[in-house]
């Protein structure tokens, strides 16, 4: 924390966008700027412009040769990794099915909002968490089961053709953290132990619209279509 200094006034939007793109700010300031990326498309675009501008400098960066065996290590680890393809899913064909699935899941989530005494899940005393993410024309239901570490999200089409919906978690002042892509049908995301630690009551789930394959920057780049808080059931 650097709060011992008098709080300096926030700079103008362009400067703030450049600061975020360069990674100059941290802590609360960074979190606040990232929330603006989520909420303000113009600000998000300014950050992206600065990122592209500074990327021109990469040409000047000195090269360094990695160890020769690294490519084999990388190649060997590709097997479990499925690339996100630019392939289009025939939405009209399956949209109705997905809507039905989404509706079922929503009912499933909605029906268990506050059982008086939820039986403690086996092997973990953490309660299940739900969030209702208010998106454009729907409420996207999300259910997290701590005993399996799985996050189930039901959404019908959120992204226009050629874009994908990406799910983020924002815990307190932390930066939005990508959890996975929402394919349009019910998505079950198996969270890694590190990711599980980010899922807690009070954290916010957000959905942004990103290029195919997800945000290339690790932070939301597109418009945010919905947010919702996680709470215990």
């Amino acid at each position: 924390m650097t709060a011992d200094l008098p709080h300096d006034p926030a700079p103008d939007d362009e400067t703030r966008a450049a600061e975020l793109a360069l990674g100059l700010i941290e802590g609360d300031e960074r979190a606040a700027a990232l929330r603006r990326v989520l909420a303000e498309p113009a600000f998000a675009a300014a950050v992206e412009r600065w990122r592209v501008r500074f990327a021109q400098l990469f040409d000047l960066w000195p090269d360094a040769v990695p160890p020769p065996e690294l490519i084999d290590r990388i190649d060997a680890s590709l097997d479990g990794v499925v690339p996100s393809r630019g392939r289009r899913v025939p939405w009209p064909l399956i949209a109705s099915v997905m809507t039905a699935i989404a509706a079922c899941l929503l009912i499933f989530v909605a029906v268990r909002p506050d059982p008086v005494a939820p039986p403690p899940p086996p092997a973990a005393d953490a309660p299940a968490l739900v969030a209702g993410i208010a998106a454009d024309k729907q409420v996207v239901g999300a259910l997290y089961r701590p005993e399996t570490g799985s996050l189930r999200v039901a959404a019908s089409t959120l992204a226009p053709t050629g874009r994908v919906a990406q799910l983020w978690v924002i815990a307190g002042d932390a930066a939005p953290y990508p959890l996975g892509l929402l394919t349009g049908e019910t998505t079950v995301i198996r969270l890694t132990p590190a990711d599980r630690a980010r899922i807690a009551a009070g954290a916010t789930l957000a959905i942004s619209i990103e290029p195919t394959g997800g945000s290339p920057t690790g932070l939301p780049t597109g418009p945010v279509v919905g947010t919702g808080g996680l709470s215990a059931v």
Partner: protein
Amino acid sequence: MGPEAGVTGPEEPLTLRPVPDPNAARAHLGNLLIRTGSEDRAAFRELYDLTSAKLFGVVHRICGERTAAEDVVHEVYLLIWRRAGAWEPGRASPISWMATIARNRAIDWRRAAGVRAARPIEDADTVPDPSPDALTAAVAGDDRARLLGCMEALDPRTRDAIRTAFFDGLTYRELAERAGSPLATIKSVIRRGLQRLKSCLAPEGGDL
């Protein structure tokens, strides 16, 4: 074909190709990225061959240690394998897109690992100086030439601070620690520099 093609005489156009065409190289990388997006492993390997020295350079400088840099680069190429389908031709250049992923990952690693970004002072000299490349840049692309020109127009202290922030992935606080200056001073130096850069790059007015 030169403008005077058709005239028989000395084969002048051949002598006018001193450097490999940067646009062709960029197009080739773009092609490899697109093929990588459709699970073409041979393309992925060639992409690695052509870009790993740059990406390792980026990551190594920010992480500061070789073993960690190898792990981060490994992770970066897995991300590239997964996200290659998201790269859009005409937006960022392939190498910029990849290097941005590498820089962000390296910074994430360093901050998560709590590694201090302190560095011996003499190392600061290895921050690349754009001046010698200005000519290449002028040939290679308007955007880069403009950025470099605008960076050059800054006073040396401001330019160094912004360059160090970029190349070493430092926050205001880390820059202040390294320079031994008050945080407020570093902030105002860089903010003024960023504002000057902005008006130099887009003099016709803000696009925000």
